[in-house]
């Protein structure tokens, strides 16, 4: 990551009291204050009375789906998929 790229944050909103926070997406920000502000600008268009959580994506530990899931899942603890480090040419099938 070069010096000019900002890290990724996951955004959670509670749209009103009585509900729990819900994941709504992600955004890039240099620090937590900025991430909260951006989340308000982007995901709530500044509606008031909304509680926002932001968490650096890299700080989230995720479970692996359990075995009765229909699909095999690579076991890692990232929220999302690993970036692919090897680019497979598009015309290679079934890799």
């Amino acid at each position, binding site marked *: 990551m070069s010096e000019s790229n900002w890290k990724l944050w996951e955004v959670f909103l509670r749209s009103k009291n009585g509900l729990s926070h819900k994941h709504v997406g992600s955004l890039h920000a240099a620090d937590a204050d900025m991430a909260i502000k951006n989340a308000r600008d*982007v995901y709530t268009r500044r509606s008031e009375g909304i509680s926002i959580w932001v968490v650096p994506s890299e700080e989230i530990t995720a479970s692996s789906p359990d075995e009765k899931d229909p699909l095999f899942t690579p076991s890692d603890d990232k929220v*999302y998929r690993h970036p692919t480090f090897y680019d*497979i040419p598009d015309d290679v099938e*079934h890799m």
Partner: protein
Amino acid sequence: MGTNVSLEDKFQAFVDAENKVEPKDWMPEKYRKTLIRQISQHAHSEIIGMQPEANWITRAPSLRAKLILLAKVQDEAGHGLYLYSAAETLGEPREKMIADLQSGKAKYSSIFNYPTPSWADMGTIGWLVDGAAIQNQVMLTRTSYGPYARAMVKICKEESFHQRQGYEVVMKLAQGTPEQKAMAQESLNRWWWPSLMMFGPSDDNSPNSEQSMKWKIKRKSNDTLRQEFVDKTVPQAEYLGLSIPDPDLKWNEERGHYDFGEINWAEFYDVIKGNGPCNKERIAHHVKAHEEGAWVREAANAYAKKQAARKEGDASAA
């Protein structure tokens, strides 16, 4: 190889049963790549699509129109962000998507390679271009990849405002002075055909479509979507008293659809290849903003690092 084939079969059965695929689920590499290509292309279209409209924000002819246009272009920035966010769940960092856009490796909707010389274009883009986009996006709320479908649901909620905004601008022109009406017709003349091209090549010439349909990334073919768009739009033009620039356009009672003329596919492919009036300008604009912003992004990172170090210092001192 054998195991892989069965995983792919399982994946297909999973998708066939209308299940949503989530980021960490196993997926064929090609499914992942197709999604990254499509979602990032979609995000880039929102972002590059800001330019032809931003071009009129400073000159909007009333304060209300200025406010609405500004809010609309801001929505597009937001939609681009939702989509980049969805693509990042597939392990593709935004910086790489941006680099691919700027190098020309990644595409965006060709429609934005046409200029917006007229205020009427602010109406026509909302009415036709957003109208065509909605046709596609409503279908994509049911796409098989969860984060993409969820982004589309959010986008569709906001997008219907855009089409109404566009239609309102055109309507005011069409019902205005003779000069305003001429402005609206001239704009429709320019945008009609490029709008039809937005749905992509016809089904016979759309090699990726079939696999995308099978994986339920796409749920309707290009030609089906295009026909739906024409059927929906013709009565809207009639209501405005504007004429659609296609002598072959006529209602086909038997099919229950409008027939329409042949698209100029040579123009379509030429613009994709980079020969549209604004391809170079759009990318140059994006590169310029990105490069001029580098010192700002670096400063914010440097400040965040210093702040974190200070916090740590405070904590260890305490």
